[in-house]
C-alpha cells in the first residue's frame, strides 16, 4: 500500500498525499479509510483533511505538531488503511425531474449519443455513483462515472448562473448544483433536495465516499418535494 504513495509539501502547513495515479471508484474506500485513520492519529493537530479523486490534502496545525510528525502519522495511517479498506459511506437516493425545461442539454446529449431523451435518462439513472470529492462550492459532489455514451465535455463557455438543484454532466462526471452558481456542466434535470444546510447535522447531504442513485420523478412530484420549476435560462452567454 505504501509503495507508490507520494507525499508532497504544499507551503508550510500542508502535505498532499498522492495515494493513486488513476481515478478509480475502487480507490474511494482506501482514501476514506486513510482519512479516518489519519484523523485518529493526529486528532486536533488536523485543521482540514481534503480528500479528492486520488489524493488527500492534509492541513495541519503547525503550532501543535511539526511536519516530521505528520509524515510519520501519514505512513502509519497508510499501512492501516490498506489493511482495513472496506466498503464505506452512506447510500442516498436523489429524486430528479429530467425535462428539457430545466435540462437544456438533455436533447443535446441525446442527439450526440443517437439516443432518445428517455434513453439518456435511463442511462443516467441506471448507475450508482460514488462521490469522489466535494469541492467548488459547499455540498457540490463530484461523482462518477457516467456511461461513456452520455459523457459530454463541459460547455465551451460557462454559464453565469446555473439554477440550484441542476443535475449536470461534465466528461464522465456527474453532479448536482447545491445552489445557484456559475458553471459549465451540461444540465439535464433538476433535483429538489437541499444538499447544503448549515442547520443540518454534518451540513451536507453527502460526503466523499458516499454512493448516490438518481430516481426520475415527474413534474408534480418535483413540485411536491418543494422543487422550483423556473425554466432554465437556456441562452448561453456566448
Amino acid at each position, binding site marked *: 500500500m505504501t509503495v507508490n504513495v*507520494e507525499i508532497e509539501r504544499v507551503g508550510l502547513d500542508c502535505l498532499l498525499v498522492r495515494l493513486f495515479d488513476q481515478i478509480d471508484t475502487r480507490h474511494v474506500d482506501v482514501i476514506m479509510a486513510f482519512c479516518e485513520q489519519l484523523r485518529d492519529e493526529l486528532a486536533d493537530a488536523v485543521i*482540514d483533511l481534503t480528500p*479528492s479523486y486520488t489524493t488527500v490534502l492534509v492541513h495541519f496545525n503547525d503550532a501543535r505538531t511539526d511536519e516530521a510528525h505528520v509524515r510519520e502519522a501519514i505512513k502509519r495511517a497508510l499501512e492501516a488503511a490498506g489493511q482495513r479498506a472496506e466498503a464505506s459511506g452512506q447510500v442516498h437516493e436523489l429524486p430528479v425531474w429530467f425535462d428539457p425545461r430545466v435540462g437544456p442539454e438533455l436533447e443535446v446529449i441525446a442527439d450526440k449519443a443517437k439516443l432518445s431523451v428517455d434513453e439518456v435518462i435511463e442511462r443516467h439513472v441506471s448507475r450508482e455513483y460514488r462521490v469522489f470529492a466535494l469541492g467548488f462550492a459547499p455540498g457540490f459532489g463530484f461523482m462518477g462515472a457516467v456511461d461513456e455514451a452520455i459523457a459530454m465535455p463541459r460547455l465551451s463557455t460557462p454559464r453565469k448562473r446555473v439554477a440550484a438543484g441542476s443535475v449536470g454532466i461534465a466528461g464522465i462526471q456527474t453532479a448536482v448544483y447545491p445552489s445557484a452558481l456559475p458553471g459549465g456542466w451540461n444540465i439535464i434535470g433538476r433535483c429538489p433536495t437541499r444538499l*447544503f444546510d448549515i442547520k443540518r447535522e454534518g451540513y451536507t447531504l453527502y460526503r466523499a465516499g458516499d454512493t448516490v442513485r438518481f430516481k426520475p420523478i415527474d413534474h408534480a412530484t418535483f413540485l411536491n418535494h418543494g422543487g422550483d420549476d423556473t425554466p432554465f435560462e437556456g441562452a448561453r452567454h456566448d
Partner: protein
Amino acid sequence: MTDSASCSITRLDGGCRVQDLGRFGVRHLGLGQGGGFDHLSLRVANALLGNAHTAPVLEITLGQVALTFSASTTVALTGADLGARLDHVPVSPGGCFVVEGGQTLMFDTPVQGLRSYLAVAGGFEVAPELGSVTALAREPLGGLHGEGDELTVGDALTYAPGFPSLRTQPDATRWSFDEALVLDVVVGLQAATFSGRSLFDAFNRPWCVDTRADSMGVRLEGPRLESRCASLVSEGLTPGVIQVPPDGAPIILGPDCQSIGGYPKFGAVTPYSLARLGQCCPGDTLHLRPVGIGLARARWAQWLGHLDGVESHGV
C-alpha cells in the same frame, strides 16, 4: 450593559467585507477558507485593541467607502493607506484612535497598499457560521446577515463601545511599501513538471499583478510558464498555492480559492508573503524567490513572534 452602538455603511463604491481569519475544518465539504487576505494586518488591528484574534473586523478594499458611527469608541486601523479621513481630518493606518458618535470615517483611494483593516474595541458583533463570519461569493453563509450576502449601503454593524489605551503598531509588523516586492515561495514537487526555462523565468523575471486580481486569486502577467501536465486530476488546494492554467499565466490562490482544483502548481507562497500579496494593486510589480523550508519557517516564526508581542501587550 451598554446600549448597542452601530457603525453604518453610508457609502460603498469600493469593497467592504466583514472578515476574520477564515473558516476551518469544513474544506472537505466543499467550503473555501476565506478570511481577510492580509491576515497579518487583520490580526494586528485586533491585537492593538486587545480583542480576541478571531474578532470580526471590516476589510476595506480600494477605498470609496464611508462608515458612520453612532457612539464613541476606540478603533484600530491597519494595512493599506486608503487616504482615510475622520470627518475630513486625515488618519493614518498603524494605530488606534477614538471615533466620536456621529463621526464618519471615509476611505478615499489607495495611497499605499490595497486593503485596510478596521477593528473596533471588542470587535463587531457578527455571529459566526461554521466558525467564521467570512462570506465567499459561492457560498450561502457568513456575512452580516448569515446568508453570504455582500454588505450594502444602509447595513449597520453593532459594537459595544470600549476605550482601551491608544496603541501604535510596532514597525516590525508594518509592510514596507518602498522596497521592491519579493514574495517567498516554497517550491513543491510538481515544479519538476515545468520546463527549466519556465522555472528560470518564474524566479528571475518580474511579474505584474493582473487587473483581474481578487480574493480568489491573483493572476500574474509575465513570461508564459509551461508544464508538461496541462491539467491534473483535481486535488486539494490551499491559499498561497501558485497554479498555472494552460494559458501559462500563474495564479497565486487567495483566501477565497476553491477547495480543490486541477492545474499544475510549482509551489506556494509563505503565509507572510500571501498576506503581503493582499496589499498588491493591479499593475504592481513583484518578484518570486524560492526559499528553503527552514528559512521560510524561521521567517514565519519571526512574524508570529512580532504578533505575539502585540497580542500579549498588557490590556
